[in-house]
């Protein structure tokens, strides 16, 4: 099912557009990766998709699910972990806050949520550290806690911006397996920006690679059978 689509997006921070006529489609229940060299507007594309940035022209559409609801999106930004390191929260409190999105203002934080927080923390291997202050953790650990928080949101779509930065090989593999598990078993959609396309490839359903064009612009190509069409048209 088509989950979200971007059509002919043009966007720039200054006068020059950094994204030129980008079109991309995201299907539900897929593990998808977006890659490309530095400055290829990967993060910008994600932010356009999420609606944090408004495109100059073009259309972004996020489809509603069968129940007519907007899908719940969990987002783990690039280096969210180093962002607010003085935040006075325990690991548990922070991951617990992931449930707030679905609970709303007053619904009780019950056993189901406890179990959810527990399994999210176990999944990233941080359960033992649940009582630690997040400021005391290392960068990689903070990253894991942020992933756990996104999982506790029970998102329909999980969007991660370079989640494996600073992880060792073993951890990265574990992470890809975890994402694969969430796509297969929980029916989620995972979109991640990554540099390690080669090692992630066996786990992925679809890859999109942004590459530099001869003229200096960014051309885009996809490396698996799909209908995604990217970048400037001839």
């Amino acid at each position, binding site marked *: 099912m088509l989950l979200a689509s971007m059509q002919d997006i043009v966007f720039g921070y200054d006068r020059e557009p950094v994204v030129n006529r980008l079109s991309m489609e995201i299907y539900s229940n897929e593990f998808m990766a977006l890659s490309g060299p530095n400055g290829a507007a990967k993060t910008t594309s994600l932010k356009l998709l*999420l*609606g*944090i940035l408004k495109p100059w022209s073009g259309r972004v559409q996020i489809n509603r699910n069968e129940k007519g609801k*907007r899908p*719940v*999106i*969990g*987002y*783990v*930004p690039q280096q*969210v972990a180093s*962002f*607010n390191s*003085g*935040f*006075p*929260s*325990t690991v548990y*409190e*922070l991951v617990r*806050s992931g449930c*707030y*999105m679905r*609970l*709303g*203002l*007053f619904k009780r934080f019950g*056993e*189901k949520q406890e*179990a*959810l927080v*527990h*399994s999210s923390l*176990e*999944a*990233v*291997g*941080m359960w*033992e*550290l649940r*009582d630690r*202050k997040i400021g005391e953790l*290392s960068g*990689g*650990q903070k990253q894991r806690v942020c992933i756990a928080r*996104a999982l506790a*949101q029970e998102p329909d779509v999980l*969007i991660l911006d370079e989640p494996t930065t600073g992880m*060792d090989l*073993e*951890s990265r*593999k*574990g*992470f890809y*397996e*975890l994402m694969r*598990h969430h796509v297969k*078993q*929980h029916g989620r959609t995972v979109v991640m920006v990554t540099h390690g396309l080669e090692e992630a490839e066996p786990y992925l359903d679809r890859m999109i690679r942004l590459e530099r064009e001869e003229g200096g612009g960014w051309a885009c190509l996809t490396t698996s059978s799909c209908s995604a069409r990217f970048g400037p048209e001839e």
Partner: protein
Amino acid sequence: MGMFDYEFMQRAFWAGGMIAVIAPLLGIYLVLRRQILMADTLSHVSLAGVAIGAIMGINPSVGGFVIAVAGALVIERLRQNFRGYGEVSIAVIMTGGLALALVLMSMDSGLNRSFSSYLFGSIVAVSSTQLWIIGTVFALVLIYWAAMRRPLYNITFDEETAQIGGTRVRWLSQTFSVLTGMTVAAAMPIVGVLLVSALMALPAALALRFARGFTSALIMAVSIGLLGMFGGLTTSYYVNTPPGATVALLLLAFLLIGMGIQRIVYRIRRDKDPGYVVDVDSRRFWQRQSRSSQQSNVKTEVLNKN
């Protein structure tokens, strides 16, 4: 105790007590959102409101209140539009508010005399109208906090992720600013324009150093605020010092003592400890993950059936 024989002291303690709960509570969020200077700015703007109120013949407290709320909305608007230059808008509005207040006050000689009580605060200054204003703001802030503490936590941690998760960040941010404006205006008669932000910043600063978690930071900030406020008001009564400054100095003393104790405790611990860190970043966690997430998955599914 003799001081409670005076009605004005009773009023001052009631008013001070309520402010000492809500100001540090909001202060924690303001510090974490890097907006603590907003309290300072709003108090200066609110002073202009006091002057405008006096000149137009309305109750000066009401004037200060209205202008503080309006100022809060303007600052919030500017902050959202000029993300990179948040401090500039604060500086501009702060000096603008103070300059306007000074000019307006010089035009009204009657107001000029009570000027220092607005700048530095006064225990005798709490009228019953002001007590009503403070009581209303107290109730509003507590109700708002009780209802909104979940989304507030999320936007305080990170606005972007909160927005994507479906929180109405803009609305929440604006209402929060309005309540900050109200609190500042309500606290002004006692603590004084110049030191309102002390009551928001100092308890939060101390609590953030010590607290283990977010809830404990909130509780700690409020307790410190209450202690500083009652201690300061009592001292102010017996020694006859301006209440705002006395409370601020007491809070500052708490902060310094707290930091000193923390440093000593750390040093003692470091001497005892060989300095190793618990090895938590090891691979076994990740290898374990698929099994344990399967297990807890089963648990959730069972719960779903109920």
